[in-house]
């Protein structure tokens, strides 16, 4: 059932608490909420645009995580990023997990909800990894149906993130950017463009990031992700870039971010940092850098007369959010 149908739109009633969500945060940078930073965030309230949580860390019934989140929600917009739904999985969608995600969304009433174009579960076993899928007409229909199901359950559109990859499938005829574009057309979902993942894929499996950016429907992009990665070099001189979210964003990724902002426009942008987590001020510093890079890219694009796409929601998305 595509989310854009009149039926799906009719599901969105003012009484649906899950649909009663705030507008997206401003097109500025936010940071991931880490348990160890919660008290300091609440005390010092640094000027970041939003806080992003991993949905799976808030699937407990109660306790300190929810207490901190409720307190921080008073001061910052919250966005929810799911890492466990396995939208690209070929075995049935984990409805219990979807229920748990719906509870997190209802409880935290996030400004944005996102998940991955990836699989992480097979026959009920969870791999704790986000693996790419082959891009074929069959997988396109499969993933679109699962996104429909999720949006119907959450009663709101979600953003879908491009994965990082170390392998490429032999049979994968549809370019990833076109696959994502088609998902937005079929389901009314948006795109979370992870600029670091795009860079990592370019290095590891030979995608061309600028062609990719040109193929992405700018109006569907609702958020960017930025992160550091690990460059692993092998004795024979080859290397892989490992998407470990454990360091600062590298200059090449900042450059690609500027290129993305010049083509697509500024959007809410998350600094992701999930391993070797640094002090809060390092995250805030990266967020300030992202704001400066986006502003510079927009100014440069305006000067060269490039037309910036504005984030106009598709009619389907407008219907979906009841705007």
């Amino acid at each position, binding site marked *: 059932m595509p989310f854009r149908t009149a039926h799906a739109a009719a599901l969105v009633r003012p009484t649906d608490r899950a649909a009663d969500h705030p507008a997206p945060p401003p097109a500025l940078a936010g940071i991931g909420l880490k348990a160890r930073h919660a008290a300091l965030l609440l005390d010092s309230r640094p000027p970041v645009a939003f806080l992003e949580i991993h949905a*799976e*860390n808030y*699937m*407990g*019934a*109660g*306790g*300190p*995580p*929810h*207490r901190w989140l409720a307190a921080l929600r008073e001061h910052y917009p919250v966005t929810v990023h799911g*890492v*466990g*739904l*396995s939208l690209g*999985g*070929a*075995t049935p969608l*984990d409805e*219990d*997990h979807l229920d*748990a995600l719906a509870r997190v969304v209802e409880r935290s009433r996030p400004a944005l909800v996102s998940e991955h174009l990836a*699989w*992480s*579960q*097979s*026959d*009920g*076993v*969870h*791999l*704790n*990894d986000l*693996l790419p*899928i*082959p891009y074929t007409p*069959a*997988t396109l229909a*499969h993933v679109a149906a699962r996104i429909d199901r999720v949006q119907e359950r959450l009663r709101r559109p979600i953003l879908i993130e491009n994965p990082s990859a*170390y*392998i*490429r*499938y*032999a*049979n*994968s005829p549809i370019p990833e950017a076109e696959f994502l574009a088609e998902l937005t057309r079929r389901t009314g979902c948006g795109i979370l463009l992870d600029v670091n993942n795009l860079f990592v894929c370019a290095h*590891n*499996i*030979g995608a061309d990031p600028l062609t990719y950016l040109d193929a992405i429907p700018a109006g569907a992009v609702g958020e960017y992700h930025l992160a550091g990665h690990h460059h692993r070099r*092998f004795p*024979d001189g*080859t*290397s*892989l870039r*490992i998407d470990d979210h454990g360091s600062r964003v590298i200059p090449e990724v900042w450059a690609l971010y500027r290129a993305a902002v010049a083509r697509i426009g500024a959007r809410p942008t998350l600094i992701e940092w999930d391993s070797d987590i640094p002090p809060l001020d390092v995250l805030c510093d990266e967020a300030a850098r992202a704001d400066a890079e986006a502003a510079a890219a927009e100014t440069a694009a305006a000067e060269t007369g490039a037309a910036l796409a504005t984030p106009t929601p598709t009619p389907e998305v407008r219907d979906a959010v009841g705007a």
Partner: protein
Amino acid sequence: MRSVREFQARMRDFAFDADGRGALVGALADCGGPPMADRLSIHRNTTMLGLAGALGDGFPVVRRLVGELFFDRMAQDFLRAHPPRRASLLTIGAEFPAFLTGYAPVRELPYLSDVARLECAWTHAYHAADGEPLHPQILATLDPERLGELRLSPLPSQRLLAAAYPVDAIWRSNQEAAPDEEIRLDSGPVHLLVHRPEMAVVFHPLSRGAFSFLMALAAQQTLAAAWDSALATDPDFDLASELAGLLTARAFGGYRLP
């Protein structure tokens, strides 16, 4: 989708067992650069080391007792036997204490499984639904003639734990900046109430009688029946003082008096 499903199943087996790499390669394209084995190993490491790390975060005292390197190997053995069935890793390792009981390399540490059970109880209490504890003076507001019919319910965070070793002392002495505490492994069994009356998880040592008493109340028995249970375990069980102590510890989340 059938070929995708088969590939994903093989990839899953490879991630947990490092076997069957050959069966994967046929579905993949050569993109030059590092060989396929190195590429696939990244996925295997993400799964096994990521999950071992999550397990260690859930069992920090067990990890500290055996050391990180040993823990990682043990965690991988556990994960191969019990791959996680949930995407949320908050409560990963429910089967870990039982696994440790039968895990030959830790036979010399007979208390390890009990420590793991305490850490499971801690994690459960930390993430359980919040509950408002009954006021310690609640009994004074009830009809004294009918107290025998009273049913006291636990907080959602409650776990009752009986162990052959002093696991609460072992736990405490393995926290950051813990003061020196003499631990005697032969000091006899312990009975613990693990719960979270507010935001902090608390261990409350219980007498044998109080443990039976709380077990009976948690099974929704009346105060009179729970008292009988306690006396059957411990003829010296003193209801008035034990109940006052449990109320002061804010052990209960509600009551029913028909």
